[in-house]
């Protein structure tokens, strides 16, 4: 065995339209806790998915225990001694905890599953890592933090050489986090290496031996954690130049308040609470924060997709209550959702249908669509936004990410909104298309519209917003003027309430 249990050398991964990983290297020593850090979208999860056989790297090599491996499936990764605790848990809710753990490798007695052995083995496993959970209760009845611990137990049960933990403490309390750290120390003593992904600086500095920092799909470097401080990490995570990535702005936001949100609370206690902010006419209000800050939930509630328990929303000085998307549309709101694929694009429908779906009543008489009107409107909107498509009948799924996003913007422009809410408008699209979308945003501002933009990309927030509201754990942790803000001040606010 060499010096490293795992070497990932020059890994490159390309998705349609974006280079998610660009020559990233990661070297992990046996028995160490190796932290992987970076902003949202820096490529941490993608790199780990390459290691765990969920994605196939397009270039580079993975060397496990000195042997080059070509990992094609997660099963193969597990067999090679790599296990992974995913950021989002997908338990089989209606099956017992133990079945969730031993799935795919049940202890057998002849052709039947050996339940007794399974219970015994689960109990032994739980005892080993000091967990007090009945193996036979349904997984769905466990609290999120217990589920997380079960997931960790499952990873331990593979007797892996390397365990990847992707944000393992996001749903854990402080005590549970300490418990997790104890487990990690135990595993370390057994010679198991941990790759630990987290946003929480203090945690990293406490548990990690080494820290690799990534930025924009590239590796920044690896340092022993003893040489690092919170500020050093933040600087290395965000440090990059920002010249010419944004079109020049030549407007001043108005002072008139178009949207006033006062003390709005979600019915869910863990979601957004006591949110207040103003949006001015002709202004881009950026919303920053880490994943899980409830930014998306907030704007979805404003758009009628989620409930609001209390608080008040005023548009143009008038009280307004949104019960459905159609209410929001009627009041001149438009929402470009975060998950373009999941809740934006109709992949199997034409560009035409995709463009007019939100405004089709305008082109209909008694429910019958007027084709020429529809085609004309869609063509105009798509030409205006410079959408590149062979024809209006082309299926949406054949367009690039950037063009899809432009079609979605066209869709909402046809509803003639005053306020556009853009949730991660440039996620997963290449630099050129990003620039075009920024230009479109500025055009809209010049037409007197107002924009709320959620973004997890610091440069985008700073480069495009007039003001930046930062959220953390469902609360507003501060509002900054973008002229005074910098990446460090935003990052501080974004982590303000994170323990």
């Amino acid at each position, binding site marked *: 065995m060499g010096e490293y249990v795992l070497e990932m050398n020059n890994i490159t991964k390309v998705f349609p339209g974006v280079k998610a990983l660009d020559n990233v290297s990661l070297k992990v020593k046996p028995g160490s806790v190796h932290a992987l850090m970076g902003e949202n979208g820096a490529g941490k999860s993608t790199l780990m998915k390459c290691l765990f056989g969920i994605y196939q790297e397009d270039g580079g090599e993975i060397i496990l225990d000195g042997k080059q491996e070509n990992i094609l499936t997660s099963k193969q990764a597990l067999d090679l001694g790599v296990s992974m605790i995913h950021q989002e848990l997908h338990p089989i809710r209606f099956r017992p905890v133990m079945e969730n753990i031993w799935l795919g490798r049940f202890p057998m007695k002849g052709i039947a599953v050996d339940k007794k052995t399974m219970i015994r083995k689960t109990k032994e496993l739980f005892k080993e890592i000091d967990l007090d959970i009945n193996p036979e209760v349904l997984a769905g009845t466990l609290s999120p933090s217990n589920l997380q611990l079960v997931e960790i137990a499952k990873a331990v049960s593979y007797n892996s050489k390397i365990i990847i933990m992707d944000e393992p403490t996001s749903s854990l309390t402080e005590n549970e986090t300490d418990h997790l750290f104890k487990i990690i120390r135990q595993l370390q003593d057994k010679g198991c290496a941990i790759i630990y992904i987290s946003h929480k600086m203090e945690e990293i500095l406490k548990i990690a031996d080494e820290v690799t920092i990534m930025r924009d799909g590239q590796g920044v470097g690896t340092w022993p954690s003893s040489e690092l401080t919170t500020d050093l990490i933040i600087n290395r995570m965000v440090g990059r130049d920002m010249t010419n990535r944004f079109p020049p702005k030549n407007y001043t936001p108005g002072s008139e308040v178009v949207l006033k949100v006062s003390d709005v609370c979600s019915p869910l206690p863990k979601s957004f609470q006591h949110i207040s902010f103003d949006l001015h006419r002709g202004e881009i209000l950026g919303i920053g924060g880490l994943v899980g800050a409830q930014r998306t939930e907030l704007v979805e509630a404003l758009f009628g997709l989620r409930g609001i328990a209390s608080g008040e929303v005023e548009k143009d000085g008038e009280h307004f209550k949104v019960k459905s998307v159609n209410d929001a549309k009627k009041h001149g709101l438009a929402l470009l959702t975060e998950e373009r694929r*999941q809740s934006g694009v109709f992949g199997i429908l034409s560009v035409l249908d995709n463009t007019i*779906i*939100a405004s089709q*009543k305008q082109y209909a008489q008694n429910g*019958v*669509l007027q084709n020429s009107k529809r085609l004309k409107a869609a063509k105009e909107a798509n030409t205006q936004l410079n959408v590149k498509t*062979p024809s209006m009948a082309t299926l949406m799924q054949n367009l690039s990410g950037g063009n899809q996003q432009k079609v979605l913007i066209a*869709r909402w422009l046809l509803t003639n909104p005053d306020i556009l809410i853009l949730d991660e408008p440039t996620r997963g699209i290449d630099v050129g298309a990003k620039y075009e979308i920024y230009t479109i945003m500025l055009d809209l501002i010049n037409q007197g519209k107002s924009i709320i933009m959620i973004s997890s990309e610091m440069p985008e927030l700073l480069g495009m917003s007039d003001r930046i509201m930062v959220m953390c754990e469902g609360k507003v942790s501060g509002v900054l003027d973008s002229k005074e803000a910098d990446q460090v001040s935003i990052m501080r606010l974004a982590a303000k309430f994170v323990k």
Partner: protein
Amino acid sequence: MQGEKIIPRKTLATVYMTVGAILAVFGLLLKFAFFTKKMYDLPWLLFGIGLIVIGYGILQIFSIERLGNEIIFSKKTAKAFLANYAIILALMVLVVIIMFIEPRFMQGQVLLDIMTQSSTRLIIALGICFTLLIAGTDLSAGRMVGLAAVISTSMMQTATYANRFYPGLPQIPVFIPILIAVFVCLLFGVLNGFLVAQFDMHPFIATLAVQVIVYGACSLYFDLPPNNSQPIGGVRSDFVYLGQHLILNRFSILIPIAVIFTIVIWFVLNKTVFGKNVYAIGGNREAAVVSGVNVYATIMGIFILAAGLYGIGGVLEAARTAGATNNYGNGYELDAIAACVVGGVSLNGGIGKIGGIVSGVLIFTVIQYGLQFINVSPMWQQIIKGIIIAVAVAIDMSKYKRK
């Protein structure tokens, strides 16, 4: 890309029109120059196919603006073409084989028979396709056909018939029982839609429940004294007219009826807000919600419209057979679903065209009719039918597989 060739759509249209013209002229030549009795109506069939191909070519010219002017020929598009039309091609081969074995198959009357037999099935399939397009299904279709058949015939018996359902019923106009039958089906459609939209129930289970309820209700009605579950007969000739009348002594009236419904449903699906919403919900329900599509109303509309079509299908089925029992329509939903799926409707929702459904229905009738024609046993017919469903869907799925 390698081996790629791009031609303008106009060229393709010209190719189509030329091929069509050749076929049509060849047909005429056969008829007037080389006709032998063994050809039956083959010349006319060739002539007809030629005209259709020419028409398709003309259509291509008119849709240049909509579909774009460039047509790409490559390995990839050839594969896609094969995947899209494999089942039609297989059907053509089958038809040619049957024609060789049994030249009598080349009669115009055969074509008319096939179209007649497809008519009611097509109307039912048109209803069910809406529920498939939103990634649902409707298992209550067949039983609704039976219900509509029983209700309509029960009020349409001749005054002299001994075993009347309503002994004292006067001679009422034909449209009244039809309206009643369809209306009752619509009510059950409301129930289907309500269960699915209100409780987010999977359509499979919601419509299974309604299927059982409809059958029970139909049987109760059928069992009412004095009928006591006897097959309903003695159906009035003005009602039977709807299913058996032959226009010009050749064309069944069912053919134009089915054509009208096909056009109407095509219109609803492609030209109305409702139709676009159906595709949107099937294509990506979440995106439809975000775009402000009224999902609740659309789902209600889908099941109500579908139930209306089953009702009409049931009335026509009763008229065609001049009778009804409570077991009418049993299993029709599965035939209709199979026809839709073979016609390219995706069970995952969002994909499906009226043209595909029509060909799906025709394919099944042609197979059944054709195999009967060459004396293949009904048992073998079942096996062949099953294989066709499996193969057609396997080919269809391969289109959407991600690499």
